[in-house]
């Protein structure tokens, strides 16, 4: 029988995969953005799970907004990435190191 912890475990695992990707793929900005999308999806999954088991609509509404905002964020991020690519001719971003950490 699938219960709430199953869904939450799935969300947690997805979040952890995304977080791992941030470390493992830090040389490619576009893959980093995809890892962040995975983490956002995990948060959305958690929201929908809680909303479904509490019988509450508010959690679902929240997810609608995070989807909207994430779409806008992706558009901005890709525009900036394009700008970066124009300046550098590469997104294989060891070039990010020209600003020290």
């Amino acid at each position, binding site marked *: *029988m*699938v219960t*709430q*912890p*199953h*869904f939450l*475990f*799935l969300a*947690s695992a*997805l*979040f*952890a*995969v*995304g*977080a*791992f*990707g*941030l*470390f*493992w*793929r*830090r*040389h*490619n900005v*576009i*893959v980093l*953005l*995809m890892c962040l*999308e*995975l983490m956002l*999806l995990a948060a959305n*999954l958690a929201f*929908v799970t809680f*909303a*479904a088991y*509490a*019988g*509450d*609509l*508010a959690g*679902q*509404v929240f*997810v*609608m*907004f995070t*989807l*909207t*905002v*994430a*779409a*806008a964020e*992706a*558009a*901005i991020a*890709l*525009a900036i*990435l*394009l700008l970066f690519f124009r300046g550098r001719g590469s*997104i*294989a971003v060891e070039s990010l190191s020209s600003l020290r950490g």
Partner: protein
Amino acid sequence: MTPADLAFFVLAAVLLASALGVVFTRNPVHAVLLLVLTFFNAAGVFILLGAEFLAMLLIIVYVGAVMVLFLFVVMMLRVDPAKMRAQGRAALPLGLLVAGVLMAEMAAVALSFAALPGAASPAFALPEGVTDARALGRVLYTDFVYPFQVAGLILLIAMVGAIALTQRARPDIKRQSVADQTARRPGDAMEIVKVTPRTGA
């Protein structure tokens, strides 16, 4: 095991496998396609949870728009998989450590989860006998009108910003200017010269 349970385990397995694929594949185009697969499976999980409208939204907005945008950028930037540097091997232990700790903690949270005693009753209880989309529509423009308007402004900012950042003035390219064309009057282009007979122009 009910069919719904079976569906959950299949969807969850494919979901996690494709998410791992996004992280591990070398080819960014493959990564985008695997991300699409991930979102499709997540949409399936949303349906299992009774959030049909969000599932559709996830496919239409995410797969339809955002992922296509990603794909577009990946292809436009011509990221050559052969030239992509070897992965951050040095970061592997740290990454595994962080992800492992995160996973262990969150698994503990997930498996021990129970709403607090005295947790609030739903502020917007799911109405009976109404589709998900209709129920969401009822609250979105009424109770949630404030965030709805703010989200509108967010989209406006994204649009203005993306255009302002990436637009380049290209004086070397000739473009049609419809406004200029329609605003043109005969007097701007022609000069009518009255030629009196026998004097020449």
